[in-house]
């Protein structure tokens, strides 16, 4: 199965959600997560491969801007067009409070301190939302019948 976490960017809370799903988040410091706040990975719009779980499910993130439901609908319809079902591809939109600020910070040029602000403020915002995000991903995992 392929699992795609959708958010307004693919390198912030979607990436943390993917890492929670993969049980790869060992410490509370998101800056240690591979690819976190790496905007260069997000600009093309291509899905980003995060890893594979013990059952062989491949996990991706993708940044789609503000219209998560439109992107979700398109991805699901595309999969159906090619004869794939929800057992082959699952799309999980991830939304948190403050995500618009995260998206805005991503657009500040590096020379104006964008990378620094992006890394530290995004980490702070995701930490504030972490408990709810963890719970949401645990429920999602249970719905997929994948043991936590």
């Amino acid at each position, binding site marked *: 199965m392929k699992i795609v976490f959708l958010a307004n960017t693919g390198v912030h809370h979607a990436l943390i959600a993917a890492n929670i799903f993969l049980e790869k988040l060992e410490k509370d410091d998101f800056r240690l997560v591979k690819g976190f706040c790496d905007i260069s990975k997000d600009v093309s719009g291509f899905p980003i491969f995060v890893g594979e779980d013990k059952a062989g499910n491949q996990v991706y993130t993708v940044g*789609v801007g503000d*219209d998560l439901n439109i992107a979700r609908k*398109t991805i699901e319809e595309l999969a159906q067009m090619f004869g794939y079902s929800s057992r082959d591809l699952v799309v999980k939109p991830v939304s948190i409070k403050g995500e618009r600020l995260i998206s805005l910070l991503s657009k500040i040029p590096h020379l104006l301190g964008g990378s620094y602000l992006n890394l530290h403020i995004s980490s702070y915002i995701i930490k504030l939302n972490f408990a709810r995000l963890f719970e949401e991903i645990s429920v999602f995992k249970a719905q997929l019948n994948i043991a936590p």
Partner: protein
Amino acid sequence: MKIIYHCFGGSHSSVLAAALHLGWIEKSRLPAIDELMAVPYFDKTSDEDFGCIRFMGVDEYGSEIYVLGKKSFAGYRYSNLLMGIAEILGVKEELFVVDCMSRVNWIMKLGGFTSRRAGLISLGRPVLGLGTRSAFLNLVNLVEITRLKTMSRV
């Protein structure tokens, strides 16, 4: 092969491009507004249609032609999203995605916005017709390029 033409609303440029691809509209002369309105989905979509991939027909090479409205997404990002998902599913070679927004002029955007988003059909449609006729040859060019690129892959 499946070919998806996409634009902002999936209502004008992508639908016209699909109609040109399928030979429903003559490429050698500018179409009248009545001819455009006879094309399925042309200036007839609503907000619920954003993100829906709608089937238009099958061309002479057996390729399935679809249209899609992506709303405010950047065109290249949406093309990459679709191609990326196709790659994940292992069907990249069976999909071709075309962004029509580069061939749309501001008169067409204004007419489309007035007709679909503002709901002022009687005001927007004549402006849309003017813009569409002005963009027509650019869209013909895009479709011809697409047909040439996909022909070799069928």
